[in-house]
C-alpha cells in the first residue's frame, strides 16, 4: 500500500463521487483527505488515499473516463509527515473588478513575507472577483504583510483585508 494522489475533473453529473469512491473501496484503497466542489459547473475532486499501484487504480477508473467527459489522474506521492501548521493563521480577503493577475500578485506578496497559503477560494460572479485565502504567517509578519497587501491592492484597484483567523477552543 502506498499514498496516492488522485484528481478527477470534468463534466458534472450526479453519482461521480459515489462511482469514484466505489472504485477505490473495491480496490481496498482507503480514502483519507478529499475535497470536491464544482468550479463554474465543472466537477472537480482531489483526494489522497492509501492504495495499490497507481496503474491498477487508473485502470479501475477507466470505465468512468471512457466517454471522454471526465479526466482522472493517479500519482504515487510521498507521505507527508509535517502536516501541522508552522505559523499563525490569518485570512486574506480580496474583492474588486476582475482583472488579470490578482491571485498571482496577492499570493506572491504572501510568499515574499514568509507566509504559506493553506486554503484558497476564488469566485468570479458577474463583474465581481473574490479571493479568500487562509495563510500561515511567521510571528510578527502580519503588519508588514498588511502594508504590502495594501500597496498591491492599490495597483490592482481592489479591496484587501488581512485579519487573524479565529478559532474557538471548546
Amino acid at each position, binding site marked *: 500500500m502506498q499514498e496516492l494522489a488522485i484528481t478527477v475533473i470534468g463534466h458534472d453529473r450526479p453519482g461521480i463521487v459515489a462511482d469514484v469512491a466505489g472504485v477505490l473501496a473495491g480496490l481496498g484503497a482507503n480514502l483519507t483527505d478529499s475535497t470536491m466542489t464544482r468550479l463554474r459547473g465543472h466537477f472537480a475532486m482531489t483526494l489522497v488515499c492509501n492504495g495499490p499501484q497507481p496503474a491498477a487504480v487508473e485502470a479501475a477508473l477507466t470505465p468512468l473516463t471512457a466517454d471522454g467527459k471526465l479526466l482522472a489522474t493517479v500519482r504515487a506521492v510521498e507521505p507527508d509527515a509535517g502536516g501541522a501548521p508552522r505559523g499563525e493563521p490569518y*485570512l486574506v*480577503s480580496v*474583492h*474588486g*473588478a476582475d482583472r488579470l493577475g490578482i491571485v498571482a500578485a496577492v499570493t506572491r506578496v504572501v510568499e515574499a513575507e514568509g507566509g504559506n497559503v493553506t*486554503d*484558497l*477560494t476564488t*469566485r468570479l*460572479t*458577474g*463583474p*465581481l*472577483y*473574490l479571493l*479568500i*485565502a*487562509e495563510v500561515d504567517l511567521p510571528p510578527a509578519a502580519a503588519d508588514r504583510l498588511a502594508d504590502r497587501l495594501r500597496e498591491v491592492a492599490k495597483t490592482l484597484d*481592489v*479591496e484587501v*483585508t488581512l*485579519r487573524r*483567523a*479565529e478559532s474557538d477552543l471548546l
Partner: protein
Amino acid sequence: MTTPIDALAGWTPESLGEPGTVRAVVAAPDPVLSRAGSDVDPCDPEVIRLAADLIATMRVSPGCVGLAAPQVGVSAQVFCVDVTGHPKAVTVHGAFALCNATVVEASRWRPGREGCMSVPDLTGDVKRASRLVVEGQLPGSGVTVKFPADGFEARALQHEIDHCAGLLFLDRVAGAHAIYQRRTYL
C-alpha cells in the same frame, strides 16, 4: 422629557415627513461600497430624504432587512434596519434609520450565514456579536439613542454599520470555504 430609548421606540418612518423614493441599489465592485461614509447632520433635509429613500428602497426589496447609504451610491453614515417578522429575530425595534452609528459594546459572538443586496450572487459565514449596544442619531430629530440589540437584529446592525465603514461581509467571512454561490432568490 423623552429618554433616548423612548425616542427610538416612538420613532416611525412617517416622522421623516416624506414617503421616500426607491433608489437603485449598487453592486460590488462599485467603489462606493468600499469607501467609509462621511459623518452626517441628522437634521439636514438631504439626510432626512436619504433616510426616507433607504426605507422606501428596503420596503420594495424582498427579504431585505437593512440598507445602508453606500448601497444606493451615497457615501454617508446613514442606514435603515427592519427585522420585524423575521424568524431569526429575537428583540425587534421595528423599522428605524440611524445616522453616525457606532457599536459601543459587542459580545457573544456567533457564526451565521449572510447575504447582501450588493453582492447578489454570494453568501458567506460571518461571525457577529449576538449582543450589542449601538449608539446613533435619529434622522429628523437628531436625538442620540443608545440601545441594546440581540440576535438577528444585532447581526443586521453590524452588517449595516460595516457598510457605512466601507466593509462588505466578504471582508469578514470565516474562511476560504465559507463562501457559497447563492442559489435561491427571495
